[in-house]
């Protein structure tokens, strides 16, 4: 009993050490957003850097624009592919919507960020419909949509919210549609193909446009800004990794629209890996990146379990004392329970994103988010376990003349064991599931293949993450039941049976 805290502490330190070591020896880090084109461009950056003799790693599919941008600003990544339209409309304030790259370069310099020239293609937003439906309704241009207020729009969440997205488009064209739903971009193609929605937003280089036989509507009133692809990088690299910067700049003007659409199609429609496509484009041999299935599984399992175990261990260290405090001091207890309850209501994705300014990207913010999620079940169950002890028994311990600390350790906590362990079990099982979202902010784990699988519409890949995650959840559940049986005092089990 007394040795347990020391063991927990040792476990925490052991889990922390590799993370620290890994944080130090890091080559240049390229990030990419959570869509295929960005991942391919990330791979191209990594492989051309390698060709130029600079080592780079690629942390793929980190999430949306805000995550990548803040990661770059905080130095959690060193470079990532971006689009000029995003810079002018979303990331930089007070910049003309049609500002050229030279202007953007001036504006980015004070932020310590550099920008390459245009890579050679413009991937602006567009509105697309199934070609047969467009023909049937006689729609060729965006302004034609005004005549069909009943059309259902399925817009990517990012497009729905950004200033240069749906709100501006609707105002600019005076669009009347009321049925607008937010979708994940990778799902919206299937939604429009199946007829669940009539029109979606898309990017000019999307591989799916020809595949699903979509028609892109002409932007006849010139609303959408240009989205020239560029790389953003931290200016500090010019000194620390000049070859990398040189390699990035060397890519300017080399990727045309057709080339990009072709690469997207090879990944999304033919199932080629981003690495292979990028290597083919650069005319080099793909670096062995495809680890075997078991090795991949092992790596992800380690990432996933490390994340869950560490966050859970730290949560236990805080939540059990908090639960004790809540049970001891009633008024404070209400506050404590309320606070951890509020934490639980934060949507998990939002929680992960909130952690980025505090912890950057990767395992740390993900662990922190999971830590906060673990608190409620443990605090609540610790509190409930202690509060549920019959007052006569608590008094009987006091009447013996045992000091409060001994009463807590030898009487109250053992009697609350079952409840506390159940709380930890709940937290652990929830954590195993929630940790799949951690891949969104670069923490890897079983969420990685799930994300990629959703992006590539590859059920096999989704299962590669989902099945081990489910198995792990079952394993954790079973493990805790075993622990519960071992740790619950025998007398309580006998009592419960009666």
């Amino acid at each position, binding site marked *: 009993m007394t040795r347990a805290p020391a063991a927990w502490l040792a476990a925490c330190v052991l889990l922390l050490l590799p993370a620290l070591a890994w944080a130090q020896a890091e080559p240049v880090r390229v990030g990419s957003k959570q869509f295929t084109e960005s991942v391919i461009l990330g791979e191209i950056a990594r492989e051309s850097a390698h060709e130029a003799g600079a080592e780079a790693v690629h942390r793929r599919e980190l999430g949306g624009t805000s995550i990548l941008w803040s990661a770059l600003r905080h130095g959690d990544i060193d470079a990532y592919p971006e689009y000029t339209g995003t810079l002018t409309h979303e990331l930089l304030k007070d910049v003309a919507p049609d500002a050229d790259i030279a202007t953007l370069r001036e504006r980015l310099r004070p932020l310590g960020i550099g920008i390459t020239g245009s890579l050679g293609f413009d991937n602006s937003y567009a509105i697309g419909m199934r070609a047969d439906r467009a023909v049937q309704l006689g729609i060729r241009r965006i302004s034609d949509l005004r005549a069909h207020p009943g059309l259902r729009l399925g817009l990517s969440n990012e497009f729905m919210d950004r200033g240069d997205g749906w709100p501006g488009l609707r105002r600019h064209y005076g669009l009347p549609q009321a049925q607008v739903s937010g979708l994940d971009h990778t799902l919206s193609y299937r939604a429009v193909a199946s007829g669940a929605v009539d029109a979606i937003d898309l990017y000019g280089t999307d591989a799916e446009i020809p595949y699903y036989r979509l028609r892109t509507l002409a932007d006849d009133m010139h609303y959408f800004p240009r989205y020239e692809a560029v790389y953003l990088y931290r200016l500090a690299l010019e000194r620390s990794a000049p070859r990398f910067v040189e390699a990035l700049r060397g890519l300017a003007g080399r990727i045309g629209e057709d080339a990009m659409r072709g690469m997207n199609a090879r990944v999304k429609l033919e199932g080629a890996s981003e690495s292979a496509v990028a290597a083919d484009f650069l005319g080099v041999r793909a670096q062995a990146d495809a680890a075997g299935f078991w090795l991949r599984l092992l790596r992800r399992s380690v990432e996933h379990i490390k994340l869950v175990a560490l966050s859970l261990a730290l949560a236990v260290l805080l939540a059990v004392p908090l639960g004790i405090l809540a049970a001891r001091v009633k008024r404070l207890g209400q506050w404590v329970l309320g606070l951890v309850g509020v934490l639980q209501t934060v949507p998990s994705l939002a929680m992960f994103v909130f952690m980025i300014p505090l912890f950057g990207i990767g395992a740390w913010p993900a662990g922190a988010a999971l830590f906060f999620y673990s608190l409620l079940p443990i605090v609540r169950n610790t509190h409930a376990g202690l509060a549920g002890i019959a007052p006569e028994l608590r008094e009987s311990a006091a009447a013996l003349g045992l000091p409060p600390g001994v009463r807590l350790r030898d009487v109250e906590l053992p009697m609350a064991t079952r409840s506390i362990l159940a709380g930890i079990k709940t937290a652990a099982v929830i954590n195993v599931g929630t940790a799949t979202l951690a891949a969104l902010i670069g923490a890897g784990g079983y969420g990685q293949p799930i994300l990629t699988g959703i992006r590539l519409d590859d059920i096999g890949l989704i299962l590669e993450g989902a099945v081990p995650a489910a198995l792990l959840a079952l394993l954790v559940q079973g493990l805790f039941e075993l622990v519960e049986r071992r740790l619950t*005092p025998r*007398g309580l089990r*006998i009592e419960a049976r009666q």
Partner: protein
Amino acid sequence: MSRETGLPGAETPPRVAFALERASKRYRGATALDGVSLAFDAGSVTALIGSSGSGKSTVLRLLLGLEWPDQGCVKVDGRVLDRGDVLAWRRRVGYVTQDGGLFPHLTAFGNLALLPRHLGWAAPRIRRRAEELAALTHLPQGVLERYPAELSGGQRQRVALVRALMMDPAALLLDEPLGALDPIVRHELQDELKAIFGQLGKTVIVVTHDLAEAAWFAERLVLMREGAVVQEGRFEDLCDRPASAFVTRFVETQRRLPERRP
């Protein structure tokens, strides 16, 4: 082995006198005790009687320092009990409640050993003491290794009594110790308890709502009603010289109960 106290392991016969002085206690506005003064001489046996809610249990709880009086005080050997003394004081008092108050996660022996272990007694000494007291209270062999949930009601109360006696306390406070037992076991234990009180020479207070049981245990009875003492004296005093109509009614009602003893 058997000394004057009949209790093995006692170096000097522990004796203590204590008292409530003009003690009042209110719970959320309801008066539980209203300016009660009661003295308990060293070595005396007193029974507190009255119906539920009369304040009997509150007297014990105040004496143990589990609650503190709103007015008045508790005195132990003439000194006012304060919060700093309370742990040491509770260890000099054995306390048994109606349901025994045994901890379900520990065996009977684990329950007995809890306090001695905390006070640094060596394991053989705890074992020896537990077995002596088990013999004194007629606990059968092997009961000490069982969990409370595996014991009968009577065994549980015996174990609770042994736990209260482990440190050879100077006083025993028993709150309806037999209230939850069936009549046969109850009579058996009444006999045993009386014998033990006679041997030990401790200051004993028994709380009960049963007049016959009170008279069986104690020379001195204290009848309480609504937080105040109504009458104090021997059983005969209550019967022959009742202080009020309430006392007469209380005695009459009790006499009709079948389990009354002569």
